[in-house]
C-alpha cells in the first residue's frame, strides 16, 4: 500500500469518527433545545457542559484532520490550504469512492447540526435578550423602591 493510500484510509477513519461526533452533537443540541424551552437554568447548564465536552473532542479531531491533509498535500506537492475532501476524492479516483460516500453522509450530518445550531443560537439569544430586559426593569424598580412600597395587583389571568 502506497503512502497516499494509507493516508487516505486514515482520512476515511477521521470522517467516520466525525460522523459519530456529529450525531452526538445533534443529540446534545436537541437536549439543549429542550432545556431552552423549559426555562430551567440547571438543565441548560448541564446541557452546555455536555456540548463543551464535544467542543474539546471536536478540536482534537480538527487537529488530526488538518495533519492528515497536510501529509497528503506533501505527497501530492500541493498547498494543504487548497485541499478539500471533494478535491481529495477527485484526485483519488476509484480509490476515493468510499471517502466520497462518507463525505456525502458527513455533509448531510453537518448540515443538520448547523440547522440545529442556528435554531438553538437564535432561541438562546432571544431568551437572553428577553430575560435581560426583564432583569433590567426589575432591578430598576427595586432601586427606586417601587416594589417595596407595595405592588399593584394584576389579574394575570383576566
Amino acid at each position, binding site marked *: 500500500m502506497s503512502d497516499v493510500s494509507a493516508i487516505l484510509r486514515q482520512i476515511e477513519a477521521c470522517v467516520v469518527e*466525525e460522523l459519530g461526533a456529529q450525531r452526538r*452533537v445533534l443529540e446534545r443540541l436537541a437536549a*439543549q*433545545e429542550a432545556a*431552552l*424551552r*423549559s*426555562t430551567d*437554568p440547571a438543565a*441548560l*447548564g448541564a*446541557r*452546555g457542559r455536555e*456540548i463543551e465536552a*464535544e*467542543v474539546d473532542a*471536536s478540536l482534537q479531531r480538527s487537529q488530526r484532520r488538518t495533519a492528515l*491533509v497536510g501529509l497528503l498535500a506533501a505527497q501530492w506537492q500541493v498547498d494543504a490550504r487548497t485541499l*478539500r*475532501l*471533494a478535491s481529495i476524492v477527485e484526485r483519488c479516483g476509484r480509490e476515493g469512492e468510499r471517502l466520497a460516500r462518507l*463525505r456525502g453522509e*458527513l*455533509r448531510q450530518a*453537518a448540515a443538520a*447540526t*448547523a440547522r440545529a*445550531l*442556528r*435554531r*438553538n*443560537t*437564535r432561541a*438562546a*439569544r*432571544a*431568551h*437572553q435578550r*428577553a*430575560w*435581560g430586559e*426583564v*432583569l433590567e*426593569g*426589575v*432591578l430598576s*424598580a*427595586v432601586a427606586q423602591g417601587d*416594589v*417595596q*412600597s*407595595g*405592588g*399593584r*395587583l*394584576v*389579574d*394575570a*389571568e*383576566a
Partner: protein
Amino acid sequence: MGSLPLSIGLRSLLTAQAGLETIGHNVANASTPGYSRQELMVSTAPGFRLRGLVMGRGVQADVVRRTVDTLLHARLARQDSVLGRLDARLNGLELAELAVGSTGDSGLPARLSALFASLSTLSAAPSDALLRAGAVQSAEDLATALNQAAKGLKDLRGDTLADLRSAVDAANTLAREIGDLNQRIPELEAGGNVANDLRDRRDQAVRELSELVEVRVVEEPSGALRVLVGGHMLVSPSKTSQLVVENDPSSGVTLLRMGAQGPLLSGEGGRVGGLTGLLDRYLPELAAELDGYAHGLALELNRVHTTGLAGSGPFTFLSATNPVGDVHESGRPGDELLSAAGLPFDIKSGTLYVNLTELATGTVSKQRIAIDAARTTVDDLVAALDALPGLGARLGAQGRVELLSEPGYGFDFSARLDADPDGLGSFGGAQASLATGPGPFALVPGDTLDLSGPAGSISVTFTPLAFQQMGQASAEEIAAVLNADPGVQAAGLVAGTVGGRLVLQTQGAGKAQSFTVSGGSALAALGWSAGTMVTGQDSAVDVQVSGVYTGAANGRWTFTPSGDGVVGLTPGLAVEVRDSGGALVATLDVGAGYTPGDELELPDGVRVSFGSGELSAAHGDVFDLDVVADADETDVLVALGLGVLFTGSDAAGLALREDLERDPSGLALGLGPGAGDALNALRLLELDGRPLEGLGGATLADAYGLISSGVGLEIDAARSTREAEEMLLASLQARRDELSGVNIDEELVRMIEQEQAYAAASQYLRVVSDLQNELLNIL
C-alpha cells in the same frame, strides 16, 4: 412539516414569556397583602403522528399555580379571629382602666384620703365653719370622682358600641366582596382560566373578615366559598347576608343578628366578639362593681351620719331624699312593706332609736321603734314615728317620709346615751312608786286589782279584749288598761313600764303621796302583796348618765337597788346593773362611803352618778338605760335618706346632700347636743381602714383597690394571652410567607441565573458554530 420547527420555537418563546410574566407578577406583588407566590407549570407538548412517526411539539405552559396551603390559611384565619378579639378586649380594658384609674389627685383613693384628712382636722375643731366647708367640699369631690368614673365607663360603652357598629359595617363590606368574588372566580375557572389573584384577594378578604368575626369557610366544588358565622350562612355561592347590631338602650344588651329579622348570633371570636364581650359582660360587670362600691360607701358613711347630731342641733323638720314606691300599684305607697318599697338600700329587722329633745330644757327622751322587715309597712313606720311625743310624721305627696317636730321639740337619731334615763321616776323617785318584776304576767279573764290612791280608791277588772294573750300579758298592756280607766286617774294614780316591768305611781310627788295595793285576784300574777303601801319622798334620787357607749352591740341595761336604804348612808347599799339577758354587768356601791353625785364607771365607756335619796328594792325601784352602738339597726334612715351625707346609691347618682353644700353646719359630727362634740366625726374616721360589712368585709380603700387592680389584672392577663397568640400568628405567617410569599431576592437570583444560562448557551453555540463552519469548509 416545514413549519414544525417554527411552531416549536414559537411555543418555546411563549412558554418562556409566560415564565417571565409570572416572575414579574410575583415581584410586582411582593408587598401585596395576601398575595401567594405563583409558579408556571410547564410540560412537554403532546406529539403528533406523521407518516408512522411520532413527532414532538416542544414545550407548553400548562397553568400558573398558586403556592397555597389551604389548611395553613384556615388556621391563619382562626388566629386572626383570636387576635381580633384579644385586641378589641385589650383596648377596651385599657380604656376602662383610665376610667376607673386610681392614680393622681383626682383619683378616688386620693379623694377618699382627702375626705378623711379633712374630717380628722375637723374633729379637733368641729364648730369651725371653714373646716366644715372643707370637709363638705372633700365629700363632694369624692362623689364627683365616682360620678366621673361612672361617666367614663358609660362613655366607653357608647364608644365600644360605635366601634362594634363600625366593625360590623366593615365585616358586611368584606362579605359583599367575598360574595362578588364568589361570582367571578367560578365564571373564570369554568372557562378554563385560572383565577389565582382573585382567589388570593378572596383569601385575604376572608382573613380580614376573620379578624372582625369568627367564621367557618367551606369551598364548594365550583370554587365558590360558603362563609358561616355562628353556624349561619353569611356568604353562600349565590347570596350574601348582612350582620346587624341591635342594642337595647334600657337593658344595654347588644344583639348580633344575621339579617334584620334573622337568627341571633353568639360569635365569640374576632373584633366583633371582643367588643360584644366588653359590651355585654365586662363593662356592665365593672359598672356594677363600681355601683356596688358607691352603694357600700354611701351605706357605711350614711349609717354613721344619720345617727349623728348636726352642729345646728336636733332637727325640727326632715324630709326623706328617697321616695317610697307604689310597687304593687295600689295607689297607696304607704301600704308597701318597708323592705319592698323600692328603696335603694335593704331594710333589716331591728330597732330605730329616736331622741326627742325638749328644746327649752334640753331634756331628751330616747324612744324605740321596732321594725320587722317582713311585717312593717311604710304606714306602720310613719304611724310609729307620729305617735312619738313631740314628733309628727307623714308620707308626703311625692312618696317621701316627712318628719316635723312639735313646737318646742327637736328630734335626732344619735346613738348618744340618755343623760337622764329615769324619766319615769321609778328609781328613788319623788312619787310613790311600786314596780313588778319583769313580765309577762299570767292574768285570767276577770282578774281584779284593787287600789287605794291619794285621791280615792278603784277596782280595775281585766278582760281578754285588752290583751293579745291574757295569760302572757305584757306590762305595756296592763299599763294601758290601768291608764285607760278613768277611776285610776281619779284616784291620783298613773301606770308606766320600765323594761317589761309594770310601774304604778302616784301622779303627785313628795312624802304626802302614797297608795296602797288593797287586793284583787291579779296580785298573784303581778307578784304584789295585798296591803303593800308605798310613799313618795321629797327629794328624788337624781340619776345622771354620761360618756359614750363603745360596746359593739345595742343593749338595755337595767338598774335595780340591792336593798332598801339611803344613797351614801346605808352600808352595803348597791345598785346592780344587768343586761337584757339578766347577766350582771356591774355592781355599783352607793352605800356608806359613796358621795352622792360622784360618777361611777361602767363598762364600755358609760358613767353614772346617783343623787341623794332613798332606794327600795322591796318596792321594785328600777330604771333602764339603752346602750346604743347603732341607733338604726334597720338602715331605714339610710334607705329613706333621712339625715344622710350622700344621696343616691350608685356611682353615677352619688351626690352630697344638697343642703349641706349651702349649710355645712348640717354635717352630723357630734353625738350629743354640745357644739364641741366631735364624737360622730370620730366614728366617721373609724370607717377609714376598718373592714366594712357594706363592702363585703373590705375597707373603703381596699374595696376600690380591688376594682382598679382587677382591671389591671385583666389587662395583664389579656396582654400575656395576646403576646402568646401573636407569637403563634407570627409563626404561622412566617410559614405562610415561606410557602406562599414572594422573596424578591430569590426571584432576582432566579432571573439572573436564567439570563446567564441563556448567555452561556449562546456562547457554547457560537464556538460550536465556528467549529462546524471549519468542518463545512473542508467538505
